[in-house]
């Protein structure tokens, strides 16, 4: 059947197993949810523009707080990173596709359906309202009797499954599909960042999976894992959540670090400074990321010894992070830096991430953290890291690789305007939040009294959010017009250093006509330039027959299997016939799995 599926049109996208198309699908979904999460943020900032505002109620505000965090983390930054993994990993390591193309399609559809399941909560007006880390026992049925928490639990469960499938796929792809000569220490840094991210996902996701199952059991089957009245402990959830949640922070930031490393080296037209140290520091951050979870819990009564040990481990993470920042600056040093939108976003990443990192060091001291935990100081900190850091880095990546993906350049003038709107808006929103935090404004409050000295900075923060929103609209405008009318992109518009620039923009379906072979880091650069900077003549094109390359066939099973899995989950968010729906889902899942297994790949 699969052989006769059309190569263009909607069916071809639903059945695609091409890593480049799946990457594009990931990016489009992530950008859609960026709008959703952005609207959440604008509504919240509008509520907080003046004290005692009555624009929205506390209940809805708590819902927006929860959904903004959940959306931005699980439905924007993670899938946008996944879009880059999908599109770039095979190209950068010189492979024809990922190790498991159909699993790759499966992970996308599972992600998309899980995300839609989570967002259905808006439509039925049962918005999860317990915060994105869903502290027990607020998640118990007694305190949240509607299905709001179930939507969140099942949505995250399904989206997490998608991440796990993708992580296994990319881990195997990177280690097993490298082209000839690409030993581990000749991989681009983005590939290293991706690899470490997948390790974190593989080891951290099962922990949250179990924790989510425990909430589901508490809510549906009367167990008491998080109910002190039945012998459970609420602190258990916090440990399980943050054992997942802290590696999750690095899952969000490492891909952006990889992207920024590539952009800075290309823009400075120099190799990444201290490449091997960058690799080791990436690994060190990943490893230490598992040893610091309790720094999110300094006020929960851990005791002095635990606080001291976890604060020491947290401070240690600052060391490899600092090493990275100085290496990025040194990468620029001695270069001939080209300022375009991509490099400006990448440079702003270094600056904003440094600010976020410094407030992070302040929180590594439990004494300071005790004063600032759950205040706007923390809100400022993690937005500097995840927005000024991860999101700015990802935007840099979008401007940098858009020509490779679409064959057209994004408009630079609009791009730079967006960049400056983002920089001004972002800093106007989040820098004042440091002051709000220092003046004791708790996070997640839907209103505040007028005599707390919080009025002015809240007003500024809201104006900043509006400015950022204008920047966001400009980006979508740029995106649409450039897709249609943008300047045609050459194969290598930025004078790049990695293998994806050696093939046409957009790349052919089979990626490389001849499997590439590399001898050194930045091999593509040295195909263009000698070691003393002389331009080399282009290698002559070798004859090649596209029919000689066998590509995996399209398949319907991934999307069906994903639908089955999501149907199982949706049995838990309805009041009636839940078991029946779940059983139907199970039947679809098992059926599709067998169909898949017996389909010739």
């Amino acid at each position, binding site marked *: 059947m699969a052989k006769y599926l059309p190569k263009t049109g909607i069916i071809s996208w639903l059945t695609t197993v091409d890593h480049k198309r799946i990457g594009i699908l990931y990016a489009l979904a992530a950008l859609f949810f960026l709008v959703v999460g952005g609207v959440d943020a604008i509504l919240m900032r509008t509520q907080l*523009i*003046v*004290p005692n505002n009555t624009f929205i109620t506390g209940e809805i505000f708590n819902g927006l707080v929860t959904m903004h965090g959940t959306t931005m983390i699980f439905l924007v930054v993670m899938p946008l990173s996944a879009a880059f993994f999908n599109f770039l990993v095979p190209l950068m390591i010189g492979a024809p596709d990922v190790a498991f193309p159909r699993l790759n399609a499966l992970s996308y559809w599972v992600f998309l359906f899980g995300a839609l399941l989570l967002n259905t909560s808006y439509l039925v007006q049962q918005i999860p309202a317990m915060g994105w880390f869903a502290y027990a*026992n*607020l998640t118990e049925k007694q*305190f949240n009797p509607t299905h709001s928490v179930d939507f969140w639990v099942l949505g995250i469960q399904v989206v997490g499954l998608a991440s796990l499938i993708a992580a296994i796929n990319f881990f195997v792809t990177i280690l097993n599909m490298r082209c000839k000569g690409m030993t581990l220490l000749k991989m681009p840094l983005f590939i290293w960042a991706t690899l470490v991210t997948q390790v974190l996902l593989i080891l951290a996701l099962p922990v949250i999976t179990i924790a989510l199952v425990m909430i589901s059991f508490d809510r549906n089957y009367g167990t008491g894992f998080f109910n*002190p*009245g039945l012998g459970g402990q*609420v*602190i258990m959830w916090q440990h399980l959540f943050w054992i997942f949640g802290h590696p999750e922070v690095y899952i969000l930031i490492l891909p952006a670090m990889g992207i920024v490393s590539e952009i800075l080296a290309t823009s400075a*037209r*120099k*190799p990444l*400074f*201290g490449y*091997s140290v960058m690799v080791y520091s990436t690994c060190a951050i990943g490893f230490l990321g598992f040893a610091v979870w309790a720094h999110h819990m300094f*006020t*929960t009564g851990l005791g*002095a010894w635990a606080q*001291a040990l976890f604060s*020491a481990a947290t*401070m240690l993470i*600052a*060391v490899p992070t600092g*090493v990275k920042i*100085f290496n990025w600056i040194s990468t620029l*040093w*001695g270069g*001939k*830096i*080209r*300022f375009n939108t991509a490099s400006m976003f990448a*440079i702003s990443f270094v600056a904003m991430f*440094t*600010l976020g990192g*410094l*407030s992070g060091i*302040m929180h*590594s*001291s*439990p*004494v*300071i953290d*005790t*004063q600032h*935990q*759950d205040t706007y100081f923390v809100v400022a900190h993690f937005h500097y890291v995840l927005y000024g850091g991860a999101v700015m880095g990802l935007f840099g990546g979008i401007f940098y690789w858009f020509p490779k993906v679409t064959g057209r350049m994004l408009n630079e003038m609009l791009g730079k305007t967006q960049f400056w709107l983002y920089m001004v808006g972002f800093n106007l929103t989040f820098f004042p939040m440091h*002051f709000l*935090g*220092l003046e*004791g404004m*708790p996070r997640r*409050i839907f*209103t*505040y009294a007028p005599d*707390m000295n919080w*009025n002015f900075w809240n*007003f500024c923060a809201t104006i900043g959010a509006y400015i950022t929103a204008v920047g966001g609209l400009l980006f979508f405008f740029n995106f649409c017009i450039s897709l249609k009318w943008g300047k045609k992109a050459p194969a290598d518009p930025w004078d790049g250093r990695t293998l994806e620039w050696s093939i046409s923009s957009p790349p052919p379906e089979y990626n490389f006509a001849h499997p590439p072979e590399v001898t050194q880091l930045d091999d593509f*650069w040295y195909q263009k330039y000698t070691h003393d*900077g002389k331009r080399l003549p282009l290698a002559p094109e070798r004859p090649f027959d596209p029919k000689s390359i066998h590509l995996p066939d399209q398949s319907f099973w991934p999307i069906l299997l994903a639908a089955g899995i999501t149907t199982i989950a949706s049995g838990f968010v309805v009041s009636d016939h839940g078991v029946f729906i779940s059983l139907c889902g199970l039947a679809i899942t098992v059926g599709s799995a067998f169909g898949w297994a017996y389909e010739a790949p």
Partner: protein
Amino acid sequence: MQLPPFDELKYKFFDVNWDAPMNTISGLTNWGKDANHVYWITTVLCFLVFFAVAIPLIYTLIRFKDKPGDESPPAQFHGSTTLEIMWTVIPVVLLIFIAVPTWRVLFKYAHAEPNALEIEVIGHQWWWEFRYPQNGKVISAGELHVPENTPLHFKLWSNDVIHSFWVPKFGGKVDVMPTSFHKETGAPSAFNTLNISSPALVDPNKKGGERYQGQCVELCGASHALMRFNAVVHSKAEFEAWTQTVNTPPKVETRLAAEGEEVFARCQACHTIAGTPSEQIPGDKIGPNLSNFGSRKYMAGGIRLNTPENLAIWLRDPASLKPGALMPNLGLTEKEIAAVSSYLRLSTVKTY
């Protein structure tokens, strides 16, 4: 909606008001002062690091910007081991300067001081209860009363979900965790503790104590933002007097108040006033203890001034002030509201 605070724009742009009610870095207790110390060490170090990053970054960007028309690539150099070692070792040294004072503070407050005043803090959705087990049956709601310059030993637990107890100017935020209770004694099986000393009175002759703003800082449901309280520091004598008189039953002197007393009979399933029949109703009450209600400055979880108007708004429909509040709309007539308000507010025997 109020107008945006344009007037503040003029004089406040780079000004953080250290006297703001919930300022976090002007702690007044022993803990607070130690925390300020650690905060400033860390902040100065962070500023140093910030400049150590920002200045080279900006310099690099200006000096190494590409020149138009120059297409030849720069020298391709790969790294420097000396530099890498340098920027590994220097941060480690700087971090030690943050770590050591931090750990000293942590261990300093790990144990209660002898003779500390014990206070039990119980979080409810969405109000605070304070019990003074060393002073008999003294119970307060929404207002934490402490004597000045006294070591305190807080024991904290929650009756429902996680809350977080925090008076910024006292310092030492600590989460208030739900727990199970011993079947016979009703004692909590686990609780958090906090050991700090209360601050000195700024004006030693201040009657009625000096107030500090506190608030719940862990998301705890629909009205999380409305779970505030006051910490009131008294002179030692005034605190002593307060513990003696707080449980004096109300003195019903007017006809209106007497009617109010009758209305209150409907409230006593959930609320207690010391020295009245409501005390005889057994079990843990779900509503706050209303003994000495007339002396409280704020009501409804510290969100409104304790005035007859606000009390009437509350009694007409509690959810209008605090969405999700457990207290139902009792359907009281205006006359009943006036009566019970008079009983609660005006019959209280005040200490100060």
